[in-house]
């Protein structure tokens, strides 16, 4: 039972981290209709920037400065890159962001090399927050939960209660009308893109010390992020939240509980062929849950798409 609670908390950390990326991606998608393939690359930039800053002044300055720097870069890319490609249509936009993802990965390798960087969590948070029957829960993970939750609440407040949020929501649905009312819609687009990438950057800053800061981190998380928002339903913020948590928990539980196919098959009355290495069914017999954990999100996506093509919370097949 205590292991279960620890897993719930661990899955919550992963899920909320995913949501920090998915929420920005969903906002950008519902506004511009373009899926930003490079979104996870901004997450990586956040981690690397924070690492570089931490070399001079420690963790906390990076927590503030790195996301802002990432957001500024994101806004500039929207203004001078994406807006230029926009007139060719959505597919070239997607190809552009894909190229951007490649380029950012190469640029990161150019500056920091291929190996993992020693980006560490701050010492102030290097203690066990609490214990559940012998399993310690690090304070840093608790900090991650608070940051992600805080960000979500701020985002929710801004989007639903402030004038800026109202303008953004209106610009999502009726960009022309909002433009005619005198709002600078291209500016709103640039701002949303900048804020979305800054959120990805913040996710990178807090995830870098836990998940590792290396050039492959963007593609590793990136494909999971896309799978998540497809499962949740493209353009649905609540769908993104539910799907993020779902995938966070699936991955955590699959990694911890060692359910073996061998035990299931034996209990069903099959006998294990000996020696196993000559059998055509060797892969089925040696299958374990931690082994298939990484592919579960993709499997879930395929199933959701076959059964419910618009995703869990999507309203239409976009």
């Amino acid at each position: 039972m205590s292991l279960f609670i620890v897993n719930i908390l661990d899955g919550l950390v992963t899920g909320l981290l995913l949501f920090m990326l998915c929420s920005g991606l969903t906002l950008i998608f519902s506004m511009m209709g373009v899926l930003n393939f490079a979104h996870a690359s901004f997450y990586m930039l956040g981690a690397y920037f924070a690492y570089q800053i931490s070399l001079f002044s420690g963790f906390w300055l990076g927590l503030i400065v790195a996301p802002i720097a990432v957001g500024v870069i994101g806004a500039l890319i929207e203004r001078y890159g994406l807006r230029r490609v926009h007139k060719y249509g959505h597919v070239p936009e997607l190809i552009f962001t894909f190229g951007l993802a490649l380029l950012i990965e190469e640029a990161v390798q150019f500056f920091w090399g291929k190996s993992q960087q020693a980006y560490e969590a701050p010492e102030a948070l290097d203690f066990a927050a609490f214990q559940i029957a012998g399993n310690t829960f690090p304070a840093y993970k608790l900090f991650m939960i608070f940051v992600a939750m805080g960000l979500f609440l701020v985002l929710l407040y801004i989007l639903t209660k402030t004038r800026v949020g109202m303008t953004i929501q209106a610009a999502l649905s009726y960009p022309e009308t909002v433009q005619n009312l005198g709002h600078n819609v291209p500016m709103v687009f640039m701002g949303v893109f900048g804020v979305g990438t800054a959120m990805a950057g913040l996710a990178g800053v807090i995830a870098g010390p836990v998940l590792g800061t290396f050039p492959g981190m963007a593609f590793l998380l990136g494909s999971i992020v896309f799978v998540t928002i497809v499962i949740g339903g493209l353009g649905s913020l609540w769908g993104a939240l539910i799907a993020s948590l779902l995938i966070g928990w699936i991955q955590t539980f699959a990694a911890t509980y060692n359910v073996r196919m061998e035990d299931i098959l034996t209990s069903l009355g099959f006998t294990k062929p000996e020696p196993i290495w000559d059998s055509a069914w060797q892969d089925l017999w040696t299958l374990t849950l931690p082994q298939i954990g990484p592919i579960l999100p993709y499997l879930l996506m395929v199933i959701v798409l076959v059964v419910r093509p618009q995703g869990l919370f999507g309203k239409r097949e976009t």
Partner: protein
Amino acid sequence: MSTPATTPLTAGTRRLIPLNHALPWIIAAVCLFILPYVFDSRSALTIMNQMAITIVFALSYNMLLGQGGMLSFGHAVYMGLGGFFCMHLLNWVEAGLWLPLPLLPVFGGLFGLFFAFLIGSFSTRRAGTVFAMISLGVGELVAACSVIIVIFFGGEEGISGDRTMGPEVLGWDFGPQEQVYYLTALWLLIAALGMFLYSRTPIGRVANAVRDNEERAEFLGYSQRHVRWMSFMASGFFAGIAGALFAINFEILTEENLNLTTSGSILLVTFLGGVGFFVGPIIGAIVFTLLQTVLSLYTEIWALYLGILFVATVMFFPGGLAGLLAMHVLPWKLGKIGHLVVPYAKMLIPALAFVLSAAAVLEILFHKRHAGLGDHEMNLYGITFDSHGAMPLITVLAIAAVSLFAIVKLAPGLKAAWDDATHMGGHHG
């Protein structure tokens, strides 16, 4: 533009295959035949084989992206699966199955087709972003499966075989690289011709219609989903052929043949070449393979250059290389292509200077950051200097700035010459 309309009376009298349509293919066949006599080194043969495989793969990719409007991030799956299946076939041939090697690509293609049929059944419902995301997810799924389904994918070390174990064909056992080249070249011709003819069939044309306006195509009575599914299966078939050729050439397949990197690089190849034209992917595959081979000999950061080139292509020349060439058809027809020679020549010098000096800036910075401790000596363009000194960096930055200034100064002249060359009339002289 000015082709005379064929009346029903004259329509039947034209030849089945007009000579001017067959000519490019005959030239291509002759070139493919002669090439090994011109470049006869072993490494040249390897590069040419690599090119041929990439061409087939890129053409099959363009059946989706260029002709069907489907952006795929997981096309390596069909090539990889076809290749893996062929590798198993080769191993069965070694165990006694009778199958001549030249027929192997057919089976690779059919295997690719089968999986395209399965996956296409749910992924082709929509084009655009949704299709792209599904292709990415499926691609990752299959790539991740390669370490789980060991019996088919061979785990981390992949599976390997021997191509020479089958029955000899015309006295060839396909051991020597040259024989493999001719086999690959033959299949390149067959596959390219097949894909070209496919794009001319009614189903190929309807694929274009669905790409351009799916709603109108539906009103004409075509199910957009079925049309896409057909294109997807045809594309999977030819990708499978490319996979079989890969298996024959390299005799090993690993997870690398399935993953996102391979899928992404074929998008890069196809887009660089140009998605709007049939020859685009061919140009892209040739240029990309050459660039990759040559650049990786000289510099460690070749992938960065390719990335910059790709992003620049998407931003400034969405038609790719083929589109760039096609832009010059109009001046050619107007007889004004000569007007462009001088402005182009003027622009060439600062452009070249800018590219080389910008690359030098990157190389020096890279050397400064990543060379071994105390290793300050650097060799660039035949000049040896101290990379940690300020002088070399300032020099190349100055050259880059000056050449950029020259480019900006020359640009209006080039634009005026271009406008003149693409419009009828004006001054001739």
